[in-house]
């Protein structure tokens, strides 16, 4: 009898809705696998609320055996904040694209990070607006061609790619967890997501993980080119690693901001 290897699905994945609806080669499935594994390992299927944004992330509205709320473009964080504030026993996960997080929903990201809201945010960075057909996003690389930057992104006119984790790391108070992983290193990405979930469960603070991801459909790349774009071009601009951990030990003493202003 021939034995074919079956891909191992995380337990929390909903088998009835698989195969999933992403394009072949899409990075979303890999990020969701990392998230699924992290949820399995933490044993939090019974109390996790999954929130998905508008963008290709919305295709996850029936992806997990988790209570799920599909929201509006950029608005997943406030919906989950609203839930978490009244049901602190729940673990809430906001799953969104780079456009949703850094453009239309940036105010929610900034303010919830600043308030150290107990939510875990996962942002899938595919350097463009995928669902709407590949327009320029805040994360589009310099010179990268998209439907709205057909001659390549001109950073003089449109700014430099947004560094989401760096932004969050610079404003989130103590207790925050901030990291950037990549679909090209799933084990590490899973560990980052797991830490981000644990950080919420422990009540430490805001947890934020960006995942460098692939969109071969809009990039119009084959497998080798896709891999190379993530590994070389994206990783070059978006450094992988942890930016903030709640147990970070700082050397030296910085002046504390006082309510009397800067002079004291």
């Amino acid at each position, binding site marked *: 009898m021939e034995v074919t290897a079956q891909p191992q699905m995380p337990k*929390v994945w*909903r088998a009835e809705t698989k195969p999933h609806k992403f394009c072949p080669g899409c990075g979303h499935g890999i990020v969701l696998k990392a998230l699924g594994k992290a949820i399995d390992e933490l044993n939090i*299927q*019974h*109390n996790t*609320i999954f929130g998905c944004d*508008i963008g290709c992330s*919305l295709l996850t*509205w*029936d992806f*997990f*055996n*988790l*209570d*799920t*709320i*599909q*929201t*509006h473009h950029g*608005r997943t964080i*406030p*919906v*989950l*904040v*609203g*839930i*978490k*504030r*009244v*049901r602190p026993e*729940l673990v809430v996960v906001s799953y969104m694209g780079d456009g949703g997080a850094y453009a239309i929903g940036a*105010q*929610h990201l*900034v*303010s*919830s990070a600043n308030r150290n809201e107990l939510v875990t945010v996962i942002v899938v960075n595919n350097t463009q607006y995928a669902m709407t057909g590949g327009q320029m996003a805040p994360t589009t690389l310099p010179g990268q061609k998209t439907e709205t930057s057909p001659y390549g992104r001109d950073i003089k006119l449109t700014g430099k790619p947004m560094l989401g984790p760096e932004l969050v790391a610079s404003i989130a108070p103590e207790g925050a967890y901030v990291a950037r992983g990549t679909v090209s290193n799933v084990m590490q990405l899973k560990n980052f997501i797991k830490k981000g979930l644990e950080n919420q469960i422990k009540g430490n603070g805001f947890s934020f993980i960006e995942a460098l991801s692939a969109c071969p459909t809009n990039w119009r790349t084959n497998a080798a080119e896709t891999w190379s774009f993530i590994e070389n071009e994206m990783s070059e601009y978006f450094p992988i690693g942890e930016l903030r951990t709640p147990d970070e030990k700082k050397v030296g003493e910085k002046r504390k901001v006082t309510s009397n202003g800067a002079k004291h």
Partner: protein
Amino acid sequence: MDIKPIQDEKRAFMTGNEVIVWGALAAGADIMYGYPITPQNEIMHYWTRLVPKYKKDFLQTEDEISAGFTTVGGVLAGKRAFTATAGPGNVLMQEALSMAEMMRLPTVVIVTQRGGPSTGTVIYSQQEVNLTCFGGNGEGLRIVYSTSSHQELFNYTIKAFNTAWKYRFPTFVLSDGYQSKMREPVTIYDPEEKGITIEPTESLLGLPGTPGVERDPAHLRNTYNLEDELYNVVKSSVKEYNSIISKIVEYDTYAVEDAKVLIIAHGVVSRAAKAAISSLREKGIKAGYFRPITLRPFPDEALRSLVDNVDHIVVAESAYGQLENIVKNNLYGFNIPIIGYLRPGMGITPEEITDFVKAELSL
């Protein structure tokens, strides 16, 4: 509800914004999410002062988009969540409220109308009727109570929570800056002592049992792949909305039995309209008054049943025809002249209405 905020009846003399807070407390509201805007600010101010005593919650959000969506979150989590806004804040909130409309979420929003368009004034208007009744990219499947006094602010704030949770449509208390800021006597009470049952809430997410193992997961969405899927969802919402209209509509009438001139007004302007009736009658004009309390759904049958012998309809409002258009829509097929006393952002007195009616009808 650990501590009853109100025991027995209490007479009080307070501002409308304070009355709204007591109404929300009496209704068992759990959390307010809000963003500062005049003239609703004091709702947040009073609420935050009472939060610790009654074990309630408050979150000041980064904008009204967030206030709307956090309210949606609170409701999904099974709590009586509410927010309050006005003017440009009401504009920003429509995105979340259209999600609430699509998903039948019992959000409660207090709207204290201010002058518009744009930043307008922070004072008063009735210009948020269209926005509150029909805002968003939907069909206006909402319930909107337009209040005219502090007693009504209290009563309808309680009712808004109950209606929202009973019928699962976004529900609004449409007030205005005058009602927010002025003081008036009011009787506050514990609704349950008056035989008003507080509708129970229900969690839509975070249910007991492991999803996929002990029960199906709650997969809630507002986006659909196919036209037919969406059509069926909207159709069933419309059907349900239409089926509850008769249980929800409310209106008030005065001196309508022999009325030849029917004055229609809502909210605080209806007080002037009602007061104008007696002075018009003293001058021999057979005037009557009709006031929709629910602007959505509109008491169309009640209005139509009144107008058979009416020669003229006068709509008085602090807006440029928002109520007038609703009235016209609902009187389609009736051949009665409708004239508007339309004063966007301006208060309206009984004398003005009386003079206008006399002048317009050349009486």
